């Protein structure tokens, strides 16, 4: 038995989630672990298991009718669902920190214009400066990380080209064309070489 939702999607119930977990092959479970290991960088999650635990908790909550992440089992393979849910949780985690900061700044501007003091304690000038400093520091750190990665591939022209494309905001087909790669397979081969080297040098995902 399964939940039906919007459109023709059929959503998983508790038994479906349990069965899907038991059916995970070693390679699938390992792939989920590897993706989680990369995703948790610069998030509130300390270990891959923390993020995976959150995913399965949300999925099971939704499966028993509580608020959570529903698995549209008729349309999305379980592994893909887990990966997309991990990405969503990580984005939520990052956006939540950003929204909190932005809201505080916005409230401070309203107060400064004399249109009334918003409820709560708006950040002081010092706090706003600290926030800006923190963002500048994060930007500086990101720049250093990008430089470190570029240094790794000084002698690899193809990865160097790919990095230049990424810096210009290109993805997918645009990179293939701009770098002169033969096809998608060529692109994926270069990307795999880049990923393996970065993971080897920075085992926790990337320098940050």
């Amino acid at each position, binding site marked *: 038995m399964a939940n039906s939702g919007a459109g023709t999607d059929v959503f998983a119930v508790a038994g479906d989630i349990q069965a899907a977990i038991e059916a995970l092959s070693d390679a699938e479970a390992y792939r989920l672990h590897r993706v989680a290991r990369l995703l948790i960088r610069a998030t509130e999650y300390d270990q891959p298991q923390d993020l995976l635990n959150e995913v399965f908790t949300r999925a099971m909550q939704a499966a028993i009718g509580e608020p959570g992440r529903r698995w549209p089992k008729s349309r999305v393979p379980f592994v893909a669902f887990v990966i997309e849910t991990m990405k969503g949780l990580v984005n939520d985690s990052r956006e939540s920190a950003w929204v909190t900061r932005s809201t505080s700044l916005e409230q401070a501007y309203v107060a400064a214009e004399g249109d009334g003091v918003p409820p709560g304690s708006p950040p002081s000038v010092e706090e706003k400066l600290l926030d800006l400093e923190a963002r500048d520091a994060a930007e500086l750190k990101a720049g250093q990380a990008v430089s470190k990665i570029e240094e790794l591939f000084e002698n690899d022209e193809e990865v160097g080209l790919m990095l230049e494309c990424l810096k210009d905001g290109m993805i997918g087909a645009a990179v293939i064309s701009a770098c002169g790669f033969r096809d998608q397979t060529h692109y994926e081969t270069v990307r795999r070489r880049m990923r393996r080297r970065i993971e080897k040098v920075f085992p926790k995902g990337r320098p*940050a």
Partner: protein
Amino acid sequence: MSDKKQSTILASLHAELIADIESDSDEGLLREAKESGEDVQKVADAMRSCAREAAAAVLRVALSKAKAAPETRRITLPRIRPALEQLKSIVTDALRRQPDAALAFRDGKSLSDTDWQTLYDDLVLLGVITPSADED
């Protein structure tokens, strides 16, 4: 030289690394794990165990909530009760089937009609009697 924010560039690069793991074949990932000396079996077992435990924990909490919730929240009384003689028969049968529920039953012979109706309602709320479809 790009004027994009460094954090945006790093995020794009990070997304490419993740996309690469997603698109790699099972054989490719397993070979890579072997080369780096990682115990795939151990990692996979730990991952499945984590998933199993997270899912089970949700069910345990839900079960404990359901047990703590008063039965009256889940059972509603029928709008129309059966005729009195039928009602008495239903109650008597229910008490015969489930003697534990007789705590609410005093002496059937001395019960007023209202007592019978109240007792019927109590047994419905206790889940001892299930009202038939034409009663609600």
